[in-house]
């Protein structure tokens, strides 16, 4: 295509700077672990369920090993398992009941620890591999879509109602269903358990809810002869745990960003950087694609002015993802149609940005978010602007089109809102189907110039970020105009420097099987 006449050198240079920015942080990541990373490891060892107080057993075990995070929780846990011969759940229950004290176990020789680890991991890892196989098979069997995948959300708060909504959305034409999480789940330092029926603003992400929704979508997908993709949020204080749950229940995609939690949920940055790495390795292992959250920047910053922050962040997110063994094809990097529609040539500016991302990330599916910020209660205007957004999505070959709702500024979507959104996308994308290959941007014109300018500004921005370091740049408010102190935010107490004794059998697996940075 190279429609935009971009300077390839600048793209390579920007990518190289982004890599150095990420690698700088990666050094920190490599030396630290977090409480949720360790809980994830426990989950992959087979710990699941809750105690009588509804506390998740991974949390129970972690709490009992408080203070020893830097060693990793696996060694004491596996030692006890080897000594008692108990399975992961029984052992955790025994710990919960106080019958076993993990801190007081006699060590066993490393060989037995490794064998125990392998034995305990196997069922989970096998299940994840099987899930990956099924997904790949079904997706391979699909006819090509010829347009972005249509992504809609359900958000009733009640998983049973969500299931109904999701099935209907699939029947109406959705390719991807995301279940929005309950507000503030991201700030919980545990993952709730069970089928949940009360959530404000969304539905709790629990492994049990995942399972129910997966089954429902497989069901309706079979009926429709399409594979319906399921999405949730590996985001917040439990990024890797949710990835692991998703891996086990065959989620296909995770909202999973290296910086979103820092910027938008005020989660500590050390914590987030460590968590994102581990969670992305889980995703890589499970074949789960990720969606990043740069679109959010444009809700607090101006989309014309801050376009460079989006591209810069996408490039940084990409590098962190590659460090975790994800491949470009699994990266739905985020951006959005958020320029005020009343601005002259706003459509062309959006087109330039979407085409720019397409060219900078040629293999990546890209996740394209709809207009939200400038939408009002004027449902007709919103519906129309969503049509323009869908047009740009098709034109520039976006991978995932998150459909805008005509009631954006009013309420979370009604059944009919979602239906109308899907019809809008189908109609527009089909009507302009081949426009991407039919149109050539005028050399030196507005579209090319805008794209080139954004690229130039991105490169300059990345250089500034490199100079100051990513963490200090975030502290200075470079992204989304939000400033976060390095030691501020939630969850810092859950971070520990790895000791020399640190041991994590899952990391060993990742080191073996993934093309990731594992130290």
């Amino acid at each position, binding site marked *: 295509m190279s429609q935009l006449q971009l300077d390839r050198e600048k793209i390579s240079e920007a990518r190289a700077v982004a890599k150095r920015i990420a690698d700088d942080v990666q050094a920190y990541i490599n030396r630290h672990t977090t409480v949720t990373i360790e809980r994830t490891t426990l989950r992959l060892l087979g710990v699941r369920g809750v105690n009588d107080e509804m506390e998740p057993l991974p949390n129970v075990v972690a709490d009992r090993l408080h203070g020893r995070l830097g060693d990793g929780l696996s060694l004491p846990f596996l030692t006890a398992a080897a000594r008692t011969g108990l399975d992961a759940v029984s052992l955790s229950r025994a710990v919960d009941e106080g019958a076993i004290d993990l801190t007081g176990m006699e060590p066993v020789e490393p060989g037995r620890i490794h064998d125990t680890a392998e034995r305990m991991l196997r069922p989970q890892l096998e299940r994840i591999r099987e899930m990956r196989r099924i997904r790949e098979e079904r997706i391979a069997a699909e006819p090509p879509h010829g347009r972005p995948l249509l992504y809609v959300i359900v958000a009733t708060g009640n998983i049973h109602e969500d299931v109904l909504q999701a099935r209907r959305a699939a029947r109406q034409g959705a390719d991807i269903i995301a279940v929005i999480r309950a507000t503030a789940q991201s700030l919980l330092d545990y993952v709730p358990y069970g089928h949940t029926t009360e959530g404000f603003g969304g539905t709790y992400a629990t492994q049990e809810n995942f399972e129910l929704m997966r089954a429902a979508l497989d069901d309706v997908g079979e009926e429709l002869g399409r594979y319906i993709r399921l999405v949730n949020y590996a985001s917040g204080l439990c990024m890797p745990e949710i990835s692991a749950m998703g891996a086990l229940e065959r989620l296909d995609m995770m909202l999973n960003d290296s910086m979103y939690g820092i910027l938008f949920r005020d989660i500590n940055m050390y914590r987030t950087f460590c968590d994102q790495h581990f969670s992305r390795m889980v995703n890589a292992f499970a074949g789960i694609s990720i969606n990043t959250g740069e679109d959010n920047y444009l809700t607090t910053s101006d989309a014309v002015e801050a376009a460079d922050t989006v591209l810069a962040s996408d490039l940084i997110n990409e590098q962190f993802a590659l460090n975790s063994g994800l491949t470009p094809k699994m990266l739905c990097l985020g951006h959005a149609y958020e320029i005020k529609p009343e601005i002259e040539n706003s459509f062309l500016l959006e087109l330039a940005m979407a085409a720019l991302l397409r060219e900078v990330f040629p293999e990546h599916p890209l996740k394209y978010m709809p207009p939200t910020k400038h939408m009002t209660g004027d*449902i007709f205007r919103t519906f129309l602007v969503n049509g323009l957004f869908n047009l740009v999505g098709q034109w520039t070959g976006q991978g995932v089109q998150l459909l805008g709702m005509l009631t954006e500024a*009013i*309420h979370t979507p009604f059944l009919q809102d979602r239906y109308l959104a899907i019809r809008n996308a189908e109609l527009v994308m089909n009507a302009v189907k081949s426009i991407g290959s039919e149109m050539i941007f005028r050399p030196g014109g507005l579209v090319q110039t805008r794209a080139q300018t954004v690229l130039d500004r991105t490169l300059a921005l990345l250089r500034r970020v490199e100079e100051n370091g990513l963490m200090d740049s975030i502290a200075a408010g470079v992204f989304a105009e939000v400033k976060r102190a390095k030691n501020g935010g939630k969850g810092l107490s859950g971070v520990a420097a790895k000791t020399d004794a640190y041991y994590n059998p899952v990391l060993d697996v990742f080191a073996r099987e993934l093309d990731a940075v594992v130290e």
Partner: protein
Amino acid sequence: MEIDLKRVKPYGDALNDGAVQLSFTLPVPSDERAEEAAKQLARKMGFRDVGVAHRNDLGDGFTFFVVYGRTSHVVNVADIEVPKVETPRYSYYEVNERIEKIFGRKLVVVGACTGSDAHTVGIDAIMNMKGYNQHYGLERYPWVEATNLGSQVPNEDLLRYAIDHEADAVLVSQVVTAKDSHIHTLTEFIELAESFGVRDRMTLVVGGPRINHRLAVELGFDAGFGPGTYAEHVASFILEDQRKRLGMG
């Protein structure tokens, strides 16, 4: 999810939440008073949780509103009886086969868009060779003798033509419904058909985008067809209706 068909309510995102979207214009200047007026109006209609999602100044003292609310009304769907065209729907081939078998002669069908209505596309879709959406029109049917008189045909001309040509069925199209013009035209048509003494002999059918079977029957027609009708639907009805009338097959 159990739906009580005796008490059905609109569904927004939960059963019986009653959610409805409205839009309308009030002839008052766009301000907070107008917004309150819009809410009061919606409440009078029986809405709770009324929200004015959008208000826009149309100028000249008019204001446009987009409103969402939850209705408190329910409707008893279980007890609704909608008259439907009961005959089976044959295909093009079946229709011809059956006419040949039952009547052994062509059925004569005459049609027009009547009164002041000049919309021909609907009646053409049913009658002309070409048909509609890959469904042949009646003219193409070997066992139907179809004549389309076009548009703006006075009721009387249509009926006289039908009588002169010993039609089995008369097809009337009505597209314009403003000021109930279709009601007037169709009522006059039935009155004329009765005074000409053909009401009991001929199958009288009406169609159009705002026509349904219930309305047609109320006005004295044998059947009514709305949007999405194809020639074979009408032909199926005509042949069955004529079969019954003539006590055949």
